[in-house]
């Protein structure tokens, strides 16, 4: 049974946000307009967060990248899909089983079941869940571009990254038709396909032959807020600086130890 996961190489990431747009077009996410955007209601299943790493501005929690060699604003561009945790806090609190952990590791959201109580939203430490604060609107011809494979969400429900489940369903069907397992690279999410810098890799974390499985073991690998014990299935590789090839700053080594000791 595969366990789908993603590895995002922050060293390669350019912060170009192609993933965000790819996700939006693939999953029929509407633009929410200025007023709602300023209210923090813009929906990005996949949001690129600029994290100041140098102490100025707001700093990221969780393991930091290489310490700044010289004083300059250090940004980490953190592409944030749903982490598809192994122990998702959101599925625990959902009162109506609208969000569930799939047997193949995908945290699923069924908007047509959701009652919009926003408990899951509050529970998610990564804030990767989005509530539909206003009507979906695709004025004029924009509706033509909607992806027929993905249903639109009504207002008043939660939606989130589903690892492009509709792609998965098709690929899975094809595999069944040919009576075989799903090949590596056959099922990738829209963001992975779009990423021009190839910062993202997608595949089966439990299958040693898959690239993600190897990358997830890299010394540069870290999981966001792993101290919360959610066990994200989206793994990040932090930046290595140009000179030192050990790559790992102290903080990460420490946090890795923590990881090892449980």
């Amino acid at each position, binding site marked *: 049974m595969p366990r789908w996961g993603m590895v995002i190489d922050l060293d390669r990431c350019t912060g170009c946000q192609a993933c965000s747009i790819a996700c939006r077009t693939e999953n029929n996410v509407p633009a929410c307009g200025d007023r*709602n955007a*300023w*209210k*923090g*209601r*813009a*929906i990005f299943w996949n*949001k690129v*967060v600029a*994290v*100041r790493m140098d102490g100025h*501005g*707001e*700093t*990221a*929690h*969780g393991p930091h990248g290489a310490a700044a060699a010289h004083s300059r604003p250090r940004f980490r561009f*953190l592409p*944030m899909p749903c982490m598809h945790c192994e122990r998702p*806090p959101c599925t*625990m*609190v*959902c*009162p*109506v*089983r*609208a969000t569930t952990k799939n047997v193949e590791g995908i945290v699923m959201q069924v908007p047509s*079941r*959701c*009652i*919009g*109580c*926003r*408990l899951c*939203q*509050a*529970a*998610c*430490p*990564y*804030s990767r*869940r*989005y*509530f*539909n*604060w*206003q*009507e979906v609107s695709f004025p004029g011809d924009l509706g033509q571009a909607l992806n027929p494979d993905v249903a639109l969400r*009504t*207002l*008043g*429900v*939660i939606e989130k990254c589903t690892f492009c489940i509709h792609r998965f369903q098709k690929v899975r069907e094809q595999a069944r038709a040919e009576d075989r397992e799903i090949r590596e690279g056959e099922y990738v999410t829209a963001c992975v396909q779009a990423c021009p810098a190839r910062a993202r890799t997608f595949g089966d974390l439990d299958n040693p032959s898959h690239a993600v499985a190897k990358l997830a073991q890299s010394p540069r690998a870290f999981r*966001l*807020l792993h101290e*919360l*014990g*959610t066990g994200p299935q989206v793994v990040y590789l932090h930046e290595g600086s140009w000179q030192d090839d050990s790559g790992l700053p102290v903080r990460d080594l420490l946090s890795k130890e923590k990881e090892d000791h449980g």
Partner: protein
Amino acid sequence: MADRDAFTYFRPLIHTSWGSLALLALSAAGAAWYFFGAFYLQFFHGHQLTGQGTHGAMWGSMVANIVQLIGVSHVGIAISATVRILKLRRYQQLARVAELVTLVSLTAAVCNIAGDVGRPDRFLTNVIKNGNYTGPFVWSASVITNYLVGSCVYLYLAMRRDIYLCSCVLPRRRWLYRILSLGYTDTPEERENHERTVWWCAVIILPIMVSVHSVYGWVFGLNSGRPGWFNPFQAPYFVLGAIVTGFSGVIVITALVRRVYKWEEFFPNRMFKGLGIFLGFVTLLYLYFLFSEVLTGVYTAPEAERGVLHDLLFGRFATIAWAATVGGMVVPFFILFVQGANPRICSMRVVVAAALPIFIAMWCWRYLITVPSFFHSHVPYRLAEYAPTLFDWSLVVATYSFGVFFYLSLVKLLPVLEIPEKFKPACPARPPRITLGERRRWGALKRVSIGATLATGAGLIAAGIASRHRVEIPAPAIWISGIVCLWTIPLQACLLPGFPSAGRVRAHMARMEPGLLRAPRPAATAVGLTECAASPATIEYWIDEQFGASRGIRRRPEIRGIG
């Protein structure tokens, strides 16, 4: 004498002033706005009308309000239950005022929850049909239903006699009270039966009320990802908060009732003083909890955690936090303390003057529990400031005016005061018709049905819990129906005509109370309450009925209408 009593006891039911009509209309309008705003506007135009946002406050003033109302709802029953169990005579009349508060605020809270979720149309059906047992929301649905049904049953049984009296005494709407009293005839054994049942209800309800607010503590406390929420302390913290809120709320409302209906004799200052002392005590306790929470927050490791606390103490929420804590808790506490310590001071005004700020401060603290956490998400998003919009505020206000409306109509419909036993109707509405033989049969039936209900209820609950994992089975629906089922037991116990156990009969025989076995004859038609001279009232009554004629000392009830 008698009619004056009746008039004082039933004042709200008998006479309605223009003022209260106006208030009724006003609050009705408010309630209407709530339902329009929450269930029409929000439903079709989304929660964008509120000030909330995903990267910002996901929950806002409405949630604060819900917690507040749930808090208030507890204490109603809590008070009356304590009064019952400990037989606190001084506070006896407080019981029903408080119970009505429970009923109202609980309903209002449920309305708020329904208005706060994105899809109220799915809300109840989905939670009950495919509820997920790990979700605190489902627990709250269960416990709230439990609590609502329970308190209704409790309220009704405790009130039944008075309703019956209404049906005998009031000039208008007797038909209504006759329906409501469901064939209650004020026989001593019925009374005794009721008291026993109600006592048991009280005993059962107390722990339930603890459960409800604990659940609300857990709604917040179980979110590991939320700085400021995630601590094991949350449940007791919330329960205590509820007690503080509730007491302040009940004090204010009782004061109003007393003011409006001139019931100084039933709600004496000394009662308020007592309440005040208790309120002061719990407030102090709450302050202590608060302090210890802040302390842990300040010392605790996670940055976000510290961020929240810092924000509360010195940051963007500092003003409201300090104002609420000092102006709304410390100062009132000292007021109450002074009053409590000083035997010469004993005034309702003082207590209310302390209770009101406490009530408001508690609301503020609900708000401060809910909102600040969102401004310290672990991942540094750019967060939108949250301020409740006019719409938010209007809904909050509207909720309370809904409460006012509901409470007022209840007061106008039901007897608020418990009418002491020494009063009996000059003319019993109807004589008990059931003969002794029938009673035996009914009694047997009753015992069977109660046993059956008990089995069914327990079974349903067990079945529901057992099937919690099955997607296709509506587990919560099952266990909730089980709970409701169980709550019919006290009703049965009181409503079904029964037959006292042989033991009890013997006891009564020993105390030579003939009435238990014999039906009273219909008395002459009359109105008004007549006060029985001696007690035990029953004996007096029956001797009078039996031998009065021969002894020629029949007491005629005065025939006079009531103003």
